[in-house]
C-alpha cells in the first residue's frame, strides 16, 4: 500500500489536535508516515502518533530546520515526495502548513488544494467555500496531491499501530536560510480552547455594547468549556482582541455548537461560522439575519438571557 506523508503540527513537544485528524484522514489513502520538523518528538509523541495509525515517524530536527522559517520544511517535504513517492501529502491549514505546502508544490511540480474538510479514498477533496455557501469536490491532476486540511473538520479516530522512528538529515540549501528566527514569543492564551479547534464557541457582537459586557460572554463560555469569539464590530471597537475575531477577515470556525450573542449576522461574520453544526442565537432584533442560521434562537436582551443561561448550566452540571 502507498505511504501518505503527514506533516505534524506541534508546538515543541505538544502535538496539536489537527495532527491526529491528518493521520486519521491519511489512513483512507494509504499508510501514514509522519514528518516531524524541529525538536520535541519524544517517546510520548511517537506513541501518540502510533495510536492514530502512524506507521513511521521521520524526525528532522537539525538547527537548520528550527532556525529558519518555512523553507527548510518545504525542501524536506519536496525531497520526501521524490524519495517516498507518497500517494499524497497532508498538512494542516496553518500559516506554516500552507506555506510549506505551497512551496513544496512548486518544488515538486504538484497541484495543491487548501482547506479540505474531507478527503475520499480516491483522493477527491471536499472544500466548503465562500463562507460555507458552496460545497466543492476537487482533485489534484498533476504530480503528488498536496492537501491542506481545515482543523476540526475530520474526526480523529484511534487505530493502534506501532510507529517506527527514523531520524532524517536532509541537506538544506542556502536559499532556505535567507531568513532567521531570532526569538520565539509565546503569548499567554489563557485556559480556553483554541478557536479553530474548539468544540463549542460563544461569541459576542455589537449588542454586547462594550469591553465590560464581554464578561458575561466569557462566563457563558467558561460554563461550557468553550472558546470565546467576537464579531468584527466588537474587535474593531476594541472591545475584544483581534485574534478572537470570527469572520471573513478573521478566523473560520466549525464547532459542534456556536452561540452568537448580540451579533446581527452580516455575511462578513457568517463566512466565519456558517458550517457550525448547531447554532444558537440571542439578539434583541428579531429581524437580525443571523436568526436564519439558528437552530434555536431567543429574541431578547442578552444581558438578561445570557447570565440566566450561564446560571442554569451551572445548576445542571
Amino acid at each position, binding site marked *: 500500500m502507498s505511504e501518505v506523508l503527514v506533516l505534524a503540527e506541534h508546538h515543541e513537544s505538544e502535538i496539536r489536535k489537527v495532527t491526529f485528524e491528518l493521520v486519521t484522514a491519511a489512513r483512507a489513502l494509504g499508510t501514514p508516515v509522519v514528518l516531524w520538523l524541529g525538536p520535541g518528538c519524544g517517546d510520548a509523541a511517537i506513541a501518540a502518533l502510533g495510536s492514530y495509525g502512524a506507521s513511521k515517524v521521520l524526525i528532522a530536527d537539525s538547527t537548520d530546520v528550527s532556525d529558519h522559517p518555512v*523553507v527548510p520544511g518545504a525542501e524536506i517535504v519536496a525531497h520526501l515526495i521524490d524519495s517516498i513517492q507518497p500517494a499524497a501529502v497532508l498538512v494542516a491549514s496553518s500559516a506554516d502548513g500552507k506555506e510549506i505546502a505551497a*512551496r513544496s508544490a*512548486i518544488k515538486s511540480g504538484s497541484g495543491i488544494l487548501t482547506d479540505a474538510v474531507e478527503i475520499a479514498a480516491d483522493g477527491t477533496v471536499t472544500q466548503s467555500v465562500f463562507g460555507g455557501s*458552496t460545497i*466543492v469536490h476537487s482533485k489534484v491532476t498533476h504530480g503528488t496531491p498536496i492537501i491542506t486540511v481545515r482543523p476540526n473538520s475530520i474526526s480523529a479516530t484511534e487505530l493502534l499501530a506501532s510507529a517506527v522512528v527514523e531520524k532524517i538529515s536532509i541537506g538544506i540549501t542556502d536559499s532556505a536560510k535567507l*531568513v532567521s528566527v531570532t526569538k520565539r514569543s509565546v503569548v499567554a492564551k489563557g485556559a480556553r480552547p483554541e478557536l479553530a479547534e474548539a468544540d463549542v464557541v460563544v461569541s459576542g457582537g455589537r449588542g454586547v455594547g462594550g469591553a465590560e459586557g464581554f464578561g458575561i460572554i466569557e462566563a457563558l463560555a467558561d460554563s*461550557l468549556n468553550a472558546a470565546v469569539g467576537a464579531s468584527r464590530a466588537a474587535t474593531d471597537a476594541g472591545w475584544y482582541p483581534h485574534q478572537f475575531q470570527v469572520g471573513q477577515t478573521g478566523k473560520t470556525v466549525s464547532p459542534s455548537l456556536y452561540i452568537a450573542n448580540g451579533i446581527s449576522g452580516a455575511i462578513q461574520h457568517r463566512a466565519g461560522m456558517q458550517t457550525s453544526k448547531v447554532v*444558537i442565537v440571542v439578539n434583541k432584533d*428579531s429581524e437580525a439575519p443571523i436568526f436564519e442560521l439558528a437552530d434555536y434562537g431567543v429574541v431578547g436582551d442578552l444581558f438578561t438571557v445570557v447570565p440566566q443561561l450561564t*446560571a442554569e448550566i451551572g445548576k445542571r452540571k
Partner: protein
Amino acid sequence: MKIAVCVKQVPDTWAEKKLMAETSTLDRVSPDGVLNELDEYAIEQALQLVEAHGGEVVIVTMGPERAAETLRKAISMGADAGIHIVDDKLAGSDAIATSAVLAKALEGRDFDVILFGSESTDARMSVIPAMVAERLGLAQVTFAQKLDIVGTTLTAERVTDYGFDTLTTSLPAVISVVEKINEPRYPSFKGIMAAKKKPVETLTSADLGLDPALVGAAAAWSEVVDFAARPPKPAGVVITDEGSGGISIADYLTNSKFI
C-alpha cells in the same frame, strides 16, 4: 526604496459568491469588484516605508479588464504607478500559474520589497506570497504584524498559533502583512485625482514570455469535479424572551446533549 504591492480585485464582501456552471470558476462579472480588503494593509505599509525611506510604490495586479478600476483605487491611496497583467489566456489560472505570472512581472525590476496582504477574501488560500518568494528565490517574511527596516536589514514579527516569531533577513524580500499591522489611510481627494494620471503599464502573457500552455484553466494542476450550493438549513425555533429565555436555551442544550 522600490516597493511593489500585489493586489487583487475580488467580489464585494457583501455579494454572494457563486461558481459558474460552465467553467467551475468564480463568477467575477455579476458582483461588484472591489480591492481585496486585506491588500489595503499592504499598500498602507508600503506608503509608510516610502515615507520613512524615500522611494516609490508600484501596485501590481493580475486580473481581467475591470481590474483596472481597482488598480486605480489602490494607486489613489498614494502609490506612484501600476502594472496590470491582463490577458484572456490567464482566466481560470490556479495559484501555481498565478504565482508564475506575478513572478515574471516582478523579476528584473529591482524591487527591494514585494508586499502582499495575508489572504484574498475570495479564495482565502494564503499561498501566493510564499509561491512568489519560491519562484523569485527571495527571502520570505509572511503574516507580519510588525516590520522594521534599517538600511537593508529587515526585522519582523510573524504571527504564529502560539504568539509570534521574530525574524530577520536582508532585503530584497517578499512580505505579507496581517490586519493588525496598521490602519490603512483613506485616499484623499488629491490622491484620487492624481491616480488618474499615474502611469499604468499593461502586460499580456506574451509580453511576459509565458508559455500559454502553462497558464489558464486548462493548465491548472487541480480541477473541480463538481460543486453544489450547501442545502439550506431547515428553519430553527425562535422564541421571544418572556423571562425564561435563558432557561429555554439550557433546555435545548440538555435535549441536544450538550450539557
